[in-house]
């Protein structure tokens, strides 16, 4: 049969999950990672990364708004998806998606952004005219009190929300890992490490994305890049990347050493069909190269301009590597037969509902959302000073 090597169960020949399901964990990973970066400043008081705090939150929101779209487009009956809210199946990991998503969107991200921006929103509402005034008016939610005391409450509540947000971000993405890791029928996916690997890779991708966005946007605005900030972000990126890589290698070494019944089949797949995307792109180009670059920036005092370039290259490669990792998990997990006797191929369509063009559109959409958010809620300029008084008071 076309595209099949060896023996596949006849129903396995066509892949069930397409490039859109690759995008879904990639996008939620960016959300979770960007939020964790924001929490570094808010909860762990890493003052150096402050210039990216609001940008990270808005980036997380822009991507989170797009996160359900690949899933909706993939469903055979998207109109029935509300059933996941109304009649969730208690034993299904996927049934939790709606709740985890809504919780993260409404109870964490939107709330935190609103609390952080409330003063700005009220001030912009007072200054604005026409439709913008209406928009900002709605965004105040009727709360226009910006007294010292009121802002102190915002700050304290915001701190608590961030604190809740960290495990929520872990849950949002760890849950995505669990969806794959809990499928015992698929040895490529079935691993208790999967949620942990997903969380750390999410942090890598989210932090890299915000780093790149911060540098690009600052350059576009003709401002000076705060090197203390990008150096700190790069340092966190480096350490988290090491943990992520170690976990992935642990999983790999464990598989190789255990060499269970699926090993021959998976090993063959990694050396043939997945060789380019797994070995070349994910491991060498997307992990080892940025790790070496980041390592060099940690041990050698390069001039600013060189560091910026190295961060730019490392961040881009890290994003490519994490995308390749999602690809290898989702697509790789469907290329081999559960009989371990054969392989199929994935042919990406171009203009279908789950095709390449749709995937590109969905990748660009968060940037459109982000540009709207950046216009409505500029993250630069005067930022409220989180003195953490409220938090520190206790």
């Amino acid at each position, binding site marked *: 049969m076309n595209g099949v090597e060896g023996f596949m169960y006849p129903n396995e020949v066509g892949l069930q999950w397409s490039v859109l399901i690759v995008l879904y964990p990639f996008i939620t990973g960016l959300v979770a990672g960007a939020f964790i970066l924001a929490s570094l400043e808010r909860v762990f008081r890493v003052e150096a990364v402050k210039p990216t705090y609001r940008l990270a939150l808005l980036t997380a929101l822009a991507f989170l708004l797009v996160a359900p779209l690949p899933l909706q487009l993939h469903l*055979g*009956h998207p109109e029935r998806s509300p059933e996941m809210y109304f009649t969730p199946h208690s034993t*299904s990991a996927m049934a939790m998606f709606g709740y985890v998503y809504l919780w993260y969107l409404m109870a964490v991200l939107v709330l935190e952004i609103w609390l952080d921006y409330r003063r700005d929103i009220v001030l912009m509402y007072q200054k604005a005219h026409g439709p913008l005034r209406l928009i900002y008016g709605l965004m105040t939610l009727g709360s226009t009190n910006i007294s010292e005391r009121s802002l102190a409450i915002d700050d304290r509540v915001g701190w608590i929300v961030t604190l809740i947000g960290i495990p929520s971000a872990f849950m949002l993405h760890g849950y995505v890992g669990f969806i794959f890791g809990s499928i015992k029928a698929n040895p490529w996916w079935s691993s208790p490490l999967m949620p942990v690997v997903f969380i750390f890779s999410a942090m890598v991708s989210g932090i890299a994305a915000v780093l790149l966005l911060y540098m690009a946007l600052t350059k576009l605005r003709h401002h000076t890049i705060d090197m203390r900030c990008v150096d700190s972000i790069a340092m966190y990126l480096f350490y988290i990347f090491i943990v992520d890589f170690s976990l992935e290698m642990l999983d790999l070494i464990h598989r190789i050493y255990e060499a269970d019944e699926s090993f021959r089949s998976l090993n063959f797949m990694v050396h043939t069909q997945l060789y380019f995307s797994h070995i070349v792109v994910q491991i060498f180009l997307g992990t080892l190269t940025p790790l070496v670059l980041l390592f060099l920036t940690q041990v050698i005092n390069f001039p600013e301009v060189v560091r910026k370039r190295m961060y730019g290259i490392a961040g881009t490669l890290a994003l490519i590597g994490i995308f390749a990792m999602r690809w290898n998990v989702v697509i790789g997990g469907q290329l081999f037969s559960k009989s371990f006797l054969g392989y199929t191929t994935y042919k990406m369509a171009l203009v279908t509902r789950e095709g390449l063009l749709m995937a590109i559109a969905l990748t660009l959409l968060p940037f459109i959302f982000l540009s709207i958010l950046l216009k409505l809620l500029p993250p630069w300029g005067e930022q409220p000073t989180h003195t953490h008084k409220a938090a520190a008071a206790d």
Partner: protein
Amino acid sequence: MNISRRQILVLLPAAAIAWKSVLAGTPEDSPNYKMSEHWWGMLIDIPKCIGCGNCVRACQTENDVPNGLFRTWVERYHVTDEDMISPQVISPDGGKEGFPVVAEDAGKYFFVPKLCNHCADSPCTQVCPVGATFVSPDGVVLVDQSYCLGCAYCVQACPYGCRYIHPEKKVADKCTLCYHRITKGLTTACCESCPTGARQLVDLKNPADPIHEFLKTHSVQVLKPQMATGAKAYYNGLDGSVR
């Protein structure tokens, strides 16, 4: 046309048999069917299977299965003496039209019919986000196609490759063990069409079912027992190379 009494005597029994077949094809409703009194499964007697593909064709006709997808299919294994790990397996068009003549004589050849194992602890029903697929009280794994989202998570979760997304209905589809037939006292289309009795519908809650005697006296195995799915497709004479 003159028909003699002698001819009538010959024709009448034939007509009676034909009428019985007609009745068998259009059974009466079974309002008295009680789900709690049955626990369905299937016995597959591998040495009896001749790979004719009758079961695949019957299933496709009975259940309007889309082309290229299968509720049941037949695989032909070719295992050489020393290589149990890498058997040569083929299933051209699900074995619907039988199999090509064996070219090589070395090793052993045998056919393995496959279908949904109607697992008691089915991984596919576990993962369904809305509970659209379920194990019925009489032990059949079914899909409520008016409720299924078409997310394909169940397809990923089935270790046996028995599920697919129906290309037109856009919902999960699979073997129903001919539920529309077995609840009316009939057997499944695949069992009925099997010329050698290699497939037999079994009711584990029926003490008179010959399956009990069979299980007592034969070495019977399920596919991928390490998956602990509570599979109810019992294979007699299952070779260790079968996946």
